[in-house]
């Protein structure tokens, strides 16, 4: 039986269509999933162009104005009061909002989750028709009085197109200019600038007499190095150009070029015949070219992230990145590209968080500013595999300090760590349930303590230690001084080398992971609890592969490769006998990542639990195929690490 609170919500909803058409059970189902927000006059609920939220709205008390910016003026397109439903675009294929919503008085708003409502649309044709009629007439607001829809149609009429999903529609439309402006080192600055201005380009490539690139001079260099410094205009460009060049082969794939620019924060990328600086220049690509052809692109997002220290803005940008991710996944963009882009975005976000944290706390600890520290990402984020914002796993290393500073350093770095964690929480990355975060004093330690931790885990592989190993061994430096992380990696390599039996324990652990398929080749689903009858794709399929990849690379003495695909790629190279299997395992991992991320985006969850009966036939087969490398690899591990003779 429903409780008083649910009854109270249901009673209110019942008074207004489409809820008035619902059966008692459906109404109760909706009511028990409602969320309630209080907004003050002037507060924004959403802005035009924002991605659709996973719920739509009904006004309980107060009033909401839907507005639109026309010619620099905010005009009211619709006015919603008690019982009016708005924001229903969320029901329609998740399109971004077309209007701004702002509270025009203090209001209580009920949020109706779309996922719950969708199931009702499927079996209640009356409700479905009600919405269909509303949508067909272009309504933004669903009201008791349908004639109001006419106004809404006018408001919508002028803006039929939606640009927010234009991400990467067709890479071939990105123009790589083949007519590159070039000049010799002896050219004067003034002459170079003149040439650039005539040809309307933003850079000039300096070449030697064979046409090999020697350097580049850009608009920005003219501003920073010439005008700002007051350099004579007769200075030869050779003295001022940037000579540290990153070049790529002219027929490299687009995603390769693009990633290279993102990673190195290049504004211009020079293409040469063979991809080295010892061959002639063939073309140039600028970020401007890319920006022009894209809306929500990684470069735009990273650029925006680098230019803000407002946490709320960082969150908005990260939300947009999720929209881009959905597009990539649905369009089958290669997984290593997608993962690299998302990792880069997350990393920039963390670096910004670090800068904000240091700014806030450094003034009280001026004597500690010289002490190096490094922020590490662990687990899936450490492996560069976190697509969705699942949860945080991170740690902080700082350089060993003299005894008299120990306490103070402990306090300072914990403050930094806690601040970073809190900023990331505000950006939508939930805290780690196991508290493996830099807000936990245990994981904010000087290098010497970290070395002891790892030595201890390797020396005494208890259950707890192996659990830690599966998370901490995948560490990756993200912000601060990477040399600390390298010293730690070196230490681990030596320790594992000394204590090979540790690998047997790790192997045992990897072998013990639950099998994904039952005896009759059916998926093994959870037997009880919240996720009953669902398939746990993380612990049954992805973790075993990640664990196996980590174990096998460690056994080859490789500590610096973190990523599961890259690990399998490397293994295929090192063990030609099994290369086919390793390649398959890498592919399987890619498929699993894609499935999990799509599942998560679709349901607004972390995607960990999948309902097997909801999968199509093809998807089921695909998923099942990913399991065969797991069991084959487990067999290899069993023999190689003699698990039959090895008991805990």
């Amino acid at each position, binding site marked *: 039986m429903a409780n008083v*609170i649910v009854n109270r919500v249901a009673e209110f909803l019942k008074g207004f269509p489409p809820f008035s058409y619902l059966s008692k059970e459906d109404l109760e189902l909706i009511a028990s999933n409602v969320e309630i927000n*209080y907004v003050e006059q002037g507060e924004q609920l959403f802005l035009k162009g924002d991605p659709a939220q996973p719920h739509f709205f009904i006004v309980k008390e107060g009033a909401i104005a839907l507005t639109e910016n026309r010619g620099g003026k905010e005009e009211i397109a619709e006015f919603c009061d008690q019982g009016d439903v708005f924001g229903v675009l969320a029901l329609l294929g998740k399109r971004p909002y077309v209007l701004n919503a702002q509270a025009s008085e203090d209001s209580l708003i009920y949020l109706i989750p779309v996922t719950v409502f969708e199931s009702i649309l499927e079996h209640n044709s009356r409700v479905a028709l009600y919405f269909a009629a509303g949508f067909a007439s272009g309504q933004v607001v669903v009201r008791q009085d349908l004639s109001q829809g006419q106004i809404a149609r006018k408001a919508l009429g002028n803006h039929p197109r939606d640009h927010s999903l234009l991400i990467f529609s067709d890479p071939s439309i990105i123009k790589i200019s083949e007519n590159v402006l070039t000049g010799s080192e002896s050219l004067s600055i003034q002459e170079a600038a003149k040439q650039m201005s005539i040809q309307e380009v933003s850079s000039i490539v300096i070449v030697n007499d064979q046409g090999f690139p020697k350097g580049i001079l850009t608009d920005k260099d003219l501003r920073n190095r010439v005008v700002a410094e007051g350099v004579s205009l007769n200075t030869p460009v050779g003295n001022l150009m940037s000579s540290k060049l990153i070049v790529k082969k002219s027929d490299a794939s687009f995603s390769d070029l693009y990633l290279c620019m993102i990673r190195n924060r290049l504004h211009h990328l020079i293409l040469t015949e063979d991809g080295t600086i010892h061959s002639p220049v063939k073309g140039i690509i600028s970020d401007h070219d890319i920006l022009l052809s894209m809306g929500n692109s990684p470069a735009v997002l990273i650029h925006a992230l680098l230019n803000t220290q407002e946490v709320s803005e960082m969150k908005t940008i990260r939300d947009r990145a999720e929209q881009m991710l959905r597009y990539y996944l649905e369009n089958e963009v290669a997984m290593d590209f997608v993962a690299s882009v998302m990792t880069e975005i997350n990393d920039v976000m963390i670096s910004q968080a670090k800068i904000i944290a240091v700014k806030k706390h450094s003034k009280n600890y001026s004597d500690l500013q010289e002490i190096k520290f490094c922020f590490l990402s662990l687990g899936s984020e450490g492996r560069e595999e976190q697509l969705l914002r699942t949860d945080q796993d991170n740690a902080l290393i700082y350089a060993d300090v003299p005894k008299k500073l120990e306490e103070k350093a402990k306090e300072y770095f914990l403050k930094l760590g806690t601040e970073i964690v809190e900023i990331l*929480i505000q950006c939508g990355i939930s805290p780690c349930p196991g508290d493996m975060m830099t807000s936990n004093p245990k994981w904010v330690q000087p290098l010497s303590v970290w070395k002891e931790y790892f030595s201890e885990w390797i020396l005494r592989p208890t259950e707890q230690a192996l659990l830690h190993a599966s998370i901490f061994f995948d560490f990756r430096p993200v912000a601060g001084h990477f040399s600390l992380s390298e010293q730690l990696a070196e230490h681990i390599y030596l320790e594992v080398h000394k204590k090979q039996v540790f690998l047997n324990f790790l192997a045992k652990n990897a072998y013990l992971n639950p099998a994904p398929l039952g005896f009759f080749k059916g998926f093994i689903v959870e037997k009880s609890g919240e996720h009953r009858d669902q398939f746990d794709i993380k612990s049954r399929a992805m973790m075993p592969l990640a664990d196996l990849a980590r174990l096998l690379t460690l056994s080859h003495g490789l500590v610096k490769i973190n990523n599961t695909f890259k690990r399998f790629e490397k293994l295929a190279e090192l063990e030609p006998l099994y290369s086919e299997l390793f390649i398959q395992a890498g592919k399987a991992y890619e498929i699993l990542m894609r499935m999990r991320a799509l599942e998560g985006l679709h349901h607004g969850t972390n995607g960990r639990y999948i309902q097997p009966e909801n999968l199509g036939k093809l998807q089921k087969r695909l998923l099942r195929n990913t399991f065969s490398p797991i069991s084959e690899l487990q067999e290899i591990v069993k023999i190689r690490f003699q698990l039959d003779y090895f008991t805990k």
Partner: protein
Amino acid sequence: MSWGFFKRSGRKQRHFVKEFLESSKRQIPAMRKIDQLSFVVLDTETTGLDPANDHVLSCGAVKIESQTIRVSSAKEWYLKSSKKGRETVIVHELLGTNPTIELENFGQDFLQYLGQSILVGHHLGFDLAMLQKALAPFGFSTFPNPRIDTMSLAIRLDYGLLVDRSRINLRDYSLDALCERFKIKTDDRHTAGGDAFLTAKLFLKLLKIAEKKGIENWGLLQK
């Protein structure tokens, strides 16, 4: 070691009590933003106002996360009374036809539901005293969770932290008076669930006012 020691220190802790106390040791960082805090707003209905002689009849609660009331988390528990005789008659009248729950099952459910959340209520101290007494047979003594009393919060927002309470008419800060002031419709008054729901709506409004006054994180809110 004498047996008297055990008597004084209360009864043996049940597993679920121990587990709850173990898990709630973690502290909330002072700099955590209000948006990121989890609250449980609760209310109890009791046989009277004296924690020593009266007992809990029912308890209602709902969670607030990201400044949003999650109706899906709304709970009501009606307790089975161990009392016999005249009292039980009254109890049954009050409870109507709602299914009741054994005290121990309630304790398990309730503590698991609370987890590490911040507890919120109007005159919260009274509700918690009654609940502590109800759970005492399982070795429970006091709630370790941080707390916020909506009455104190409302007073603080009007007068600041250093107010002299003797100069305030506390009647202006009853749940009814505050609901009227903040235009919250008082249906279902005096059922535990209904009052918890009203208190939750009141708390949402108070939080917005608090934020406007610069109270934006846990450290400032808990003062």
